[in-house]
């Protein structure tokens, strides 16, 4: 079985879809059900006259359904996956009907097209040339804007620190927001985001001046690095440009960046709400290469994320890394194999001290990093009922605090025994993403 019911449910866009999908996870709602090595399909009787045609591509877990729902995947897609996860025998193995075969064929041509572009450097070069002119012009204009933005940023920073941070405690949110908006206009969205997140700091706890000063200091370092860009080594230059505001484009991965084919384990993901939408962070680790990939997707509210990334599974895929002094941000270029459950062990799992040493090392390469994948070996989750605090403690007694939350599933599967734990470390707290206990990998979702 390539995925479990829980993993399929983790794909649901909301809890209503999940429970609706669960209801449909019964063969009697389906007029027909089938599968082959590539895909699942079924016809589900809805409220309309004709049953909905539902298909799932097993390689990418893409869902296509003829229902009018704007949710993605819809309840029919989830139901079909749940039946497959729970009772695969309900899906008759066989040749796909035309409405499935056509869809699969279309997907194949599209993938081949993509592959063709990837494989032929001449075609890429030709395309590049035609784009070149317009691009150069736009780039020049942008460079100017950014330079102006950075100059304004420096003035603002100097003003802030000259007058003293004590003065900002009483400033309204608009104080930060208007600065951020100006920076966005100057095309330095990366810095704008950092400034926007500073708004919540003043007065938030006793340490706020320390935190705010640290954030301001790092922005200053960034601004300084950008003005001296040509003195930096090439990969770090890319980091700084991106951190300032140059977007990471998927198409750039065709011409630059590193590609790694491996069995990638999707260790976990979480979603952060932002003012205009939601950001999804998914952490992957290569089973053979041991490398870490972070896939970040943005979606407007109520819109699905472009790619379905299912936590808790493992799949052979080609992953492209954007150039960086510490390459981590990545994109799944091509999925190549079956989707399987993670059974462990997770490569690179280590105790807390060595993990923290690796954090220091990667900061030495790229000092503005804010999130790190921790794969901790043999740690025991602990809950202190008196304080409500959660910790992961390793065999040596070193412990990291977990992000405040309820981790009863983690506690239940560990039972006070050591487990392997994957999480996102932000320098202060560890956000659990998944755990491997007795050979079973449990993604630890937000909705626990």
């Amino acid at each position, binding site marked *: 079985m390539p995925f479990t*019911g829980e993993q399929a449910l983790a794909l649901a866009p909301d809890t209503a879809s999940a*429970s609706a999908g*669960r209801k449909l996870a*019964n063969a*009697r709602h389906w007029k027909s059900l089938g599968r082959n090595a590539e895909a699942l399909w079924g016809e589900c009787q809805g409220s309309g006259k004709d049953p909905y045609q539902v298909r799932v591509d097993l390689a990418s877990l893409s869902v296509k359904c003829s229902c009018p729902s704007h949710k993605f995947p819809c309840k029919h897609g989830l139901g079909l996956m749940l039946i497959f996860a*729970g009772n695969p025998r309900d899906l008759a193995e066989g040749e796909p009907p035309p409405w499935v075969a056509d869809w699969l064929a279309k997907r194949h041509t599209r993938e081949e097209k993509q592959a063709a572009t990837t494989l032929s450097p001449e075609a890429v070069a030709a395309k590049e040339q035609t784009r070149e002119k317009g691009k150069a012009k736009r780039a020049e204009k942008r460079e100017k804007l950014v330079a102006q933005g950075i100059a304004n940023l*420096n003035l603002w*920073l*100097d003003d802030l*620190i*000259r*007058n*003293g*941070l*004590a*003065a900002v405690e009483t400033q309204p949110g608009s104080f930060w927001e208007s600065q951020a908006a100006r920076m966005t206009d100057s095309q330095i969205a990366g810095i704008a985001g950092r400034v926007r997140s500073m708004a919540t700091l003043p007065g938030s706890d006793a340490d706020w*001046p*320390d935190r705010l*000063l*640290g*954030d*301001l*200091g*790092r*922005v*200053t*370092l960034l601004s*300084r690095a950008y003005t001296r860009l040509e003195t930096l080594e090439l990969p770090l230059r890319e980091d700084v440009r991106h951190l300032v505001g140059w977007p990471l484009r998927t198409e750039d991965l065709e011409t630059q960046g590193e590609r790694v084919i491996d069995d990638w384990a999707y260790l976990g993901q979480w979603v952060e709400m932002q003012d205009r939408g939601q950001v999804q962070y998914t952490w992957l680790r290569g089973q053979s290469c041991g490398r870490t990939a972070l896939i970040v997707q943005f979606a407007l509210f109520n819109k699905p994320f472009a790619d379905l990334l299912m936590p808790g599974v493992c799949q052979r895929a080609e992953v492209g890394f954007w150039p960086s002094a510490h390459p981590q941000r990545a994109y799944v270029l091509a999925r190549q194999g079956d989707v399987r459950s993670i059974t462990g062990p997770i490569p690179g799992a280590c105790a*807390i*001290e060595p993990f*923290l040493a690796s*954090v*220091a090392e990667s*900061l*030495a390469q790229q*000092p503005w990093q804010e999130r790190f994948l921790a794969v901790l070996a043999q740690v*025991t989750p*602990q*809950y202190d*009922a008196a304080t409500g605090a959660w*910790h992961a*403690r390793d065999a040596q*007694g*070193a*412990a*990291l*605090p977990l992000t405040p939350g309820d981790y*009863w*599933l983690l*506690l*239940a*599967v560990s*039972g*006070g*025994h050591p487990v392997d734990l994957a999480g996102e470390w932000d*320098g202060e707290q560890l956000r659990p993403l998944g755990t491997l*206990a007795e050979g*079973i990998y*449990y993604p630890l979702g937000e909705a*626990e």
Partner: protein
Amino acid sequence: MESIVNAALAGAGRASLADALPPATPEGALIGSLADESAEQRLLLAAGVRAIYRLAGYVPEHIETPVHPAPAETKTICPPQVADLIQHILGERVDDLLREALERMVAAGMILPPGMLPLALGSATVAQRPLMAQVAGERGAWLGGCNSAWSWVRESQAHYQDDQDALPADAETIWQEGTPADRLHILARWRATDPATARDEIAAVWRQEKADFRVEMTEALAVNLSAADEPLLEAALDDRSGNVRAVAQRLLTRIPGSAYVERAKTRADALLTMGKKKLVTTLPDVYEQAWERDGISAKARHGTGERSWWLLRIIALTPPAHWVERFGLSPTDLIAAATDEHATDVLQGWSHAAVRYDAREWTQPLVDMWTKRLAGRRNGDASPLEMCELLLPHLPHSSLEAMARNILQHGESKQDISWEMLATALHRPWSVQLTRAWLAGLRTFAGELSALKGYPPDWWECSEEHVMRLPLACLDEVLAPWDVAEAKSGNWQAVNWRQQHQAFLKAVRLRQRIRDEIPGT
């Protein structure tokens, strides 16, 4: 707060950077090399460096002692398909099915996998807790020690354990200081193994306990009840609490030859005499205060005269066998002989007495008599219905099923006990025979659904509530393909029936999975 932060709070214009950034720190050393920069930039850059150094130099906390781990399981973790099934049932929220599934798991010595415990424990209702605790295993008990919302797991398991084992060593302490539930548990164990000690303990604490607890303690005497308990029960008849007295009265009727039963007989003898094949009833003249403690209240039930009420209660507390013995007539003949103006009160008294004294040979004749009265009853006379409801559960199951089959075959007539009443009294599961008769009729009904006018008769109703009446052996027959007639959209009763029927079949399928996937005993 460190001086660099103080400097930033105060403002770079006012603070001394040399003090804020001692050269011994990495950031201080760095600032020394940036002498050309403005004070603001030097402070900001130093702050940035400091923040990154701190991130890189994070020192983890140290926790000296690890948590005490959960002990190894002694039972088997259920296979994944059973776990899936339980998860499914939890999502559907069908209590009867969950109970059956969990009971089968307990009988099979199975427990839930740890990954399901938060969901299962979190959704268990108070009524489901004892069973849920049995399938939670050692891990569940351990989790309950971490999360106070689940502390009931350990308590429930401990009680269950006790039922198998001897009394705990600290039984005496628990009995003196424990929670009411724990104390009653100890009491039940004592009563089962050493009835006399239990009785003495009850007597010793009697005066200091609250009424509710006195009720429970009296109830505990039901196990291993003997004549030795009579003095304590007789004393309980003088208790302030009516509930305590009611329990004591009930238990005293179960002690052969008890003074209580003798008093009842003497009281009753004055009221009934036999004339020429007819019973002659004499109403009691005055209320005696001593009757109160035996369960005869002075105040009549609404709608009954005082003296009739006393008659009814006196008969109700007298063993029915006494009349058979005294008049040498069978229950049927005695019932036939009750014809005078007070006959209804006598018959009601006998009905209550038949239930109280578990006099099986009286039940059927009484039901037959009340059923006859059902047909001829005048408006507002609720007693035939009430008495049928009282007596039905005490009829042999075969009689109940015969009545049910009669309705399935011929429909309900005014002379019959209603289907609704029967269905409540019928034991679950039904016999295979009754189930098949019902199914056959139901299939015919489904085939003719389009002809349905108005509501379907009660006995052709089927929804998920009815799934537990099926014996496990009949589930496959129920799930054989159905030929349900189309229902016109205007005929909402038929449309509704189809929906209910679907829900019924869905619940049956779930029950079939429970039967097939969790091994039975």
